[in-house]
């Protein structure tokens, strides 16, 4: 399904309002995706200038969050949407919250990148950041994709990916602890890497949340806290 699955209301302006808010959400998603990519790159390349740009740009994400929520409040007040229109607006409101948090996590990673480059590069942990970073970036991009295309199969895949990221995060943490025990002088710097890994793991959680909002929006099934197996059953039922 494309963006025009919201057309066809008797009120053309209602269509326009829904399309506009969807457009804004897509814009916000694009910026957030870029921020995450930039934050990872800034960490890996010790690029302070890039990290500072990420920190600065977080404000524009916050502004978009407020603007989209306001649009949604107006739609609720004006149109009293029902059924899938209602689910669409609710999902948008929840998704903006997740996107804004992802923006915050990118901001945290960029801050770590700045402090790391001030203290000299961390001796370890870049492999883990690169690996989990790639995984999480792909999840985020798929989560945004399934929102735009209303693709529940892809949404289910994103949720399943989150499990894999959690496992990778666990083993990365164990590796970091080993480094700290081996070389206590590196603790501060390895901690910075750990905070960044933590941020990436959280981004994966938010991507999964977005995927769950998509399943609710498309099917009307609330799959939060269900577990992957039951979630897959719900998706397959339709």
């Amino acid at each position, binding site marked *: 399904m494309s963006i025009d699955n919201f057309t*066809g209301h008797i009120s053309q302006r209602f269509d326009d309002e829904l399309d506009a808010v969807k457009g804004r959400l897509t814009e916000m998603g694009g910026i957030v995706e870029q921020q995450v990519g930039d934050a990872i790159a800034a960490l890996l390349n010790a690029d302070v200038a890039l990290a500072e740009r990420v920190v600065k740009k977080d404000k524009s994400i916050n502004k978009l969050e407020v603007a989209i929520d306001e649009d949604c409040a107006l739609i609720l007040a004006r149109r009293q*949407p*029902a*059924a899938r229109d209602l689910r669409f607006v609710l999902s948008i409101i929840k998704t903006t919250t997740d996107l804004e948090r992802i923006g915050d996590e990118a901001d945290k990673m960029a801050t770590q990148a700045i402090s790391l480059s001030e203290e000299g590069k961390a001796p370890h942990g870049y492999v883990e950041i690169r690996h989990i970073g790639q995984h999480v970036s792909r999840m985020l991009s798929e989560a945004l994709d399934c929102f735009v295309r209303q693709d529940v199969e892809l949404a289910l895949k994103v949720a399943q990916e989150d499990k894999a990221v959690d496992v990778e995060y666990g083993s990365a943490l164990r590796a970091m602890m080993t480094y700290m025990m081996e070389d206590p002088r590196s603790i501060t710097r390895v901690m910075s890497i750990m905070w960044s890994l933590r941020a990436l793991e959280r981004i994966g959680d938010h991507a999964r949340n977005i995927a769950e909002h998509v399943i609710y929006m498309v099917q009307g099934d609330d799959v939060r806290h269900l577990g992957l197996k039951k979630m897959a059953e719900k998706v397959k039922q339709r």
Partner: protein
Amino acid sequence: MSNPIKNPLAAEQLVADPVPSAGEPISMHPDADLSKTVGKIEVKNAKMSMRSVDVFYGDKQAIFDVNLDIARNEVIAMIGPSGCGKSTFLRCLNRMNDTIENCKVTGSVLLEGEDIYATKQDVVPLRAQVGMVFQKPNPFPKSIYDNVAYGPRIHGLAHSNVDLDEIVETSLQRAGLWSEVKDRLDQPGTGLSGGQQQRLCIARTIAVSPEVILMDEPCSALDPIATAKIEELIDELRSRFTIAIVTHSMQQAARVSNRTAYFHLGYLVEVGKTDDIFTNPNHKLTEDYITGRFG
């Protein structure tokens, strides 16, 4: 039974509520299957039970094979575009269609298991059992007191004037009107505001202790405050009565009803819990209607 001398209630209602018009023709959705109702039509221990109901106005069929149960003490809302048959169906439930010439109803309409279209059924007590409130408030040109006392008098429900006073007071209280009119019961009912008149009509309906109350767009002539009062009243009445309400306001259906039935072109397309219908309906036509997508 449409003889106005025999049945003055019917005569009043006939004047106030003309024969429903067919409305604008609605274009059929190409992939719409109307013949089978989506959702659960049966309920346990139903108050009313309708099976294979067809309604014809002359040659024109207005209702097609509708099957539906109405549960005890539930509020069921009937929604759908103009001309979908929801009012026609509602009027079958107390044989109000008898008052329309050329109108033929087939199938069965059971109230507590008894067929209300049976030949031995007298419609005057039936309409006391299954009362009706109309779109436009239609108080009799009588005093407020007499409006409410009228039904109990003709049905012989009051044995003394004290009895009658009590019925009038209780009915007005249940209709939420008592405190507003208790000092002017002798004034004409037509002198009240629109919302008060509608609550007076509800008081008149409940004065004869009905089991079921049918409401045909009871709020469409009222302002939002009067509407809110009626909705509040419906909420209170549901503990005593079974209520079927036809409404054009989907928000109203969503607010007041337990179950919602969606009619389209004379078919019952979908019926289900109101909460489900308004968040996640199963039939595409229902979804298109409640989201405002009909062209």
